[in-house]
């Protein structure tokens, strides 16, 4: 008899989701899906609002990554104004974004995934949480809490508020940085870097215990996408989009964020409110790609800061297709974030008073692309002659990873789930593969059916039921 296993809700992720696993007559896994079960609708209800409100409105999508949405949204609004924002404002936004990435990575690694990594995938579920970590390794738990605190405090010093600050505005930022604030931030950076290094040192040994997971946690060839600098180093705020293949060959480079619709199409699967973007030239679903820490380190030639570069040399020997290595990549990015913030803040021009460009809207379409902790984030707005939003389209990092997450769930389920009796630890692995991606589902589910792109409705087998082009 066929049977369905449902993991609902998936725990230790951000937002609500469930996983269903289909078993055939022999008890083998025949199919598995990752369902995102909520709709947020931001794309729809911002229609009619003045575009200057968009950063703060869009920031409300998430309480963990409000900064990422603020930045992508403000960049889209900069494009509506058609201005080049003052360079110090861009650098200040960069620092804010790096602090945000560091704190979010700390949340993902320490709070959500370290219980699996420290205590083991098969540990007692009542212990397999941050409190269990606190008992087993107080230093590790304290490091996680402190790292997140440092990131959040930097955000607060810069923007006056840790969550949903109003500091990032169309045209730049609302207040310049003074020396006192700069020094306060600089004073915290060495500790953040120390924690990141200590954690990477610990994690390198942990990796040896998880060979089976490394081999099966969404380990398959896909494309990887992210922003890079022209020099091929990490870029979290601006820059061209680079796409590389599973074996590291460059597929595309220097793509412009505002051309995203020419190379990304969005599909919708009936089982999820999360859309499934794919690389258009490769079609669906062959255009599957991944974004986020693993993808970013897979596309760059090197991160671009000394200690992160050194660690990257070891990382490069790992299997580049295993999503298990999102964890490792995340830690290297935390190192990069602290090193990069120091580089940016050392430059006195960051305290320049001119931090906001002012203009009337000069363009009817504005697209902002930046790197959020979980990957490339795209905000696309259109306005009428009065500056009111007529259309908004968001492609959230987690959405880019949707196809890979689904395929990853199936891969893990097929490997670990066999027979009638299924140990809890095996189901935990199915959740843990999702955790490697650090999905933020509250960010990622918006108005399905309003995409200004090609829209395909697919059966579970990938057969196209309906197709719509706008």
């Amino acid at each position, binding site marked *: 008899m066929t049977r369905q296993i449902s993991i609902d809700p998936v725990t230790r992720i951000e937002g609500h989701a469930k996983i269903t696993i289909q078993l055939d007559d022999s008890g083998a896994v025949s199919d598995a899906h990752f369902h995102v079960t909520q709709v947020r609708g931001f794309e729809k209800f911002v229609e009619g609002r*003045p575009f*200057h*409100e968009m950063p*703060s409105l869009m920031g*409300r999508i998430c309480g963990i990554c409000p900064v990422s949405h603020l930045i992508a949204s403000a960049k889209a609004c900069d494009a509506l104004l058609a201005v080049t924002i003052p360079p110090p404002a861009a650098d200040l936004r960069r620092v804010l974004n790096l602090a945000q990435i560091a704190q979010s990575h700390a949340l993902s690694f320490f709070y959500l995934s370290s219980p699996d990594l420290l205590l083991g995938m098969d540990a007692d579920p009542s212990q397999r949480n941050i409190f269990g970590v606190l008992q087993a390794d107080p230093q590790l738990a304290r490091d996680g809490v402190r790292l997140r605190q440092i990131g959040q405090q930097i955000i607060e010093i810069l923007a006056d508020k840790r969550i949903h600050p*109003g500091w990032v505005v169309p045209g730049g930022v609302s207040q310049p940085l003074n020396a006192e604030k700069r020094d306060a931030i600089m004073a915290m950076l060495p500790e953040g870097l120390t924690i990141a290094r200590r954690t990477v040192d610990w994690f390198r040994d942990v990796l040896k215990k998880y060979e089976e997971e490394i081999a099966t946690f969404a380990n398959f060839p896909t494309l990887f996408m992210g922003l890079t600098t022209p020099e091929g180093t990490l870029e979290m705020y601006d820059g061209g989009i680079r796409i590389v293949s599973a074996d590291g060959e460059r597929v595309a480079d220097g793509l412009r964020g505002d051309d995203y619709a020419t190379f990304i199409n969005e599909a919708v699967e009936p089982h999820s409110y999360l859309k499934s973007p794919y690389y258009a030239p490769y079609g669906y679903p062959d255009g599957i790609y991944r974004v986020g820490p693993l993808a970013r380190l897979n596309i760059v030639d090197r991160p671009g800061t000394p200690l992160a570069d050194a660690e990257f040399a070891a990382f490069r020997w790992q299997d580049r297709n295993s999503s298990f290595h999102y964890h490792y990549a995340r830690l290297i990015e935390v190192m990069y974030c602290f090193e990069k913030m120091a580089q940016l803040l050392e430059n006195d021009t960051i305290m320049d008073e001119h931090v906001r460009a002012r203009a009337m809207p000069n363009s009817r379409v504005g697209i902002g692309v930046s790197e959020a902790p979980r990957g490339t984030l795209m905000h696309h707005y259109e306005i009428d002659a009065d500056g009111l939003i007529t259309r908004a389209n968001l492609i959230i990092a987690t959405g880019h990873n949707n196809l890979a997450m689904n395929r990853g769930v199936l891969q893990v389920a097929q490997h670990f789930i066999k027979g009638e009796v299924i140990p809890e630890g095996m189901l935990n692995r199915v959740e843990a593969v999702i955790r490697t991606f650090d999905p933020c589902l509250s960010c990622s589910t918006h108005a399905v059916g309003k995409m200004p792109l090609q829209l395909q409705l697919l059966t579970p087998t990938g057969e196209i039921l309906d197709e719509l082009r706008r």
Partner: protein
Amino acid sequence: MSGVVTLKINGQDIGAHDEESILQAALDNGIEIPTLCDLPGLSRIGACRLCLVEIAGNSNLVPACITPVQEDMVVTTDSERLQAYRRTIVELLFAEGNHVCSVCVSNGACELQDLAETLGIDHLRLPGLHPAREVDASHERFILDHNRCVLCTRCVRVCDEVEGAHTWDVTARGIESQIIADLNVAWGDSESCTGCNKCVQVCPTGALVDKGRSVGEMRRRREFLPYLTMMRKENGK
């Protein structure tokens, strides 16, 4: 001929001109009464009912802004009954429109928000109506967001009484009421509007705002109003 009357407000003996309202007499003596539609320099209309007070011997509550003082009047400006009325009024205002402080340009500088805070309103007992209302951004420099309008008509009065343009008016009835420019044209098409921005300065909420403001960036300057009114009166003598 104006005379002086004596009365009690909250047990305090007070002297006032007999032309004065209870609100004015209270304010002159440092007694706060919550208001929303009232603004020094504009005519008083008793629309918002937040300044309701109790008068001994009168079972009805009266609006302090338009009720003149009388000899031997005994006024109470704060009681459980009054608090309950005021809270209900403010909750009704929130429920009737679309007020989302956290993403509003007037966050931190909004009289409706201040009232809610003062009255301890941290949630609504009434379901929000969430009406579908328009945003008029047709003016080059300003925006009228009907979602945040509480129909205090300060804009209507300042435009008529101080600027003399009478661009703003109120159309329709009851819950359908809304502020209109001229004979219900887009603000940007109004022929009478002088673009003086007095209406924007007097708006208590985020309904009338400067274009280009982001969340929490709206600030108002209103000190000028009583002086303007005074100067106009003197010149008209």
